[in-house]
């Protein structure tokens, strides 16, 4: 699976690179590849763009529940919950992680807009919950502090 994907990616990159002729452009092609997969994006803006979120509004109808101080950065419980109607998608971003796009939950029929999951965090950062309601994106964030040394503060 991985090998196949790798081959496919390389092929796509070489094809675009060859078509446009310069080494610089193959860099752009690489960026395009990243765009297709938000999980590979390395900055928050890129990840948001790759996920197709051009603008999002902060909303008080969304709550992101996470500890103020994470005792174990490898297991940070996060809950995103929204009272908005017609929620089709919930995405969770961790701003300072090497790959900020952490997870995406596509909600099917009858499911409530509430998701709990656990994440790893590299360092203190904002946890951002983005909820798609109708055609618009709404967001809320919560700062989580990560302590090193494991004393738990």
């Amino acid at each position, binding site marked *: 699976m991985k090998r196949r994907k790798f081959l496919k990616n390389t092929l796509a990159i070489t094809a675009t690179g060859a078509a446009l002729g310069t080494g610089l452009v193959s860099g752009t092609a690489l960026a395009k590849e990243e765009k297709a997969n938000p999980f590979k994006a390395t900055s928050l803006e890129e990840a948001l763009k790759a996920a197709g979120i051009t603008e999002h509004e902060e909303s008080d109808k969304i709550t992101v529940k996470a500890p103020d101080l994470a005792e174990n950065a490898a297991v940070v419980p996060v809950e995103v919950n929204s009272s908005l109607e017609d929620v089709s998608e919930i995405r969770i971003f961790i701003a300072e992680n090497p790959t900020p796009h*952490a997870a995406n939950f596509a909600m099917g029929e009858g499911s409530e807009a509430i998701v709990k999951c656990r994440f790893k965090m590299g360092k203190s950062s904002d946890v951002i919950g983005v909820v798609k309601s109708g055609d618009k994106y709404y967001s809320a964030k919560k700062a989580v502090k990560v302590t090193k040394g494991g004393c738990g503060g």
Partner: protein
Amino acid sequence: MAKKFKTRLKVKEKDGRVNVKAIVSHPMLTGLTKDKKGNKIPEFFIQEVVITANDTVIMTANWGPAVSKDPYISLDYAGKSGDVVKLAWTDNQDNKGEAEKKVK
């Protein structure tokens, strides 16, 4: 690879809402960690989780490597007792796992 991944699923109904909780035992490696010799350990994580109730998809989750080890997930949906909830996952090395439970 004959590694065993245990998938545990719990379902509970209350006032017309069914709460689904699941834990999969999986290492969820990010691809950023290194072993003792300094070689990168390749990424190994669950990419997709599909939860269905009576064969209707209630949620599809796409995960990145940022999800913690032995991932836990919890969600609610409007359901009733007697529903059959199924969870199926696939990781980036094509391992698969699933679990099924009937709502009491």
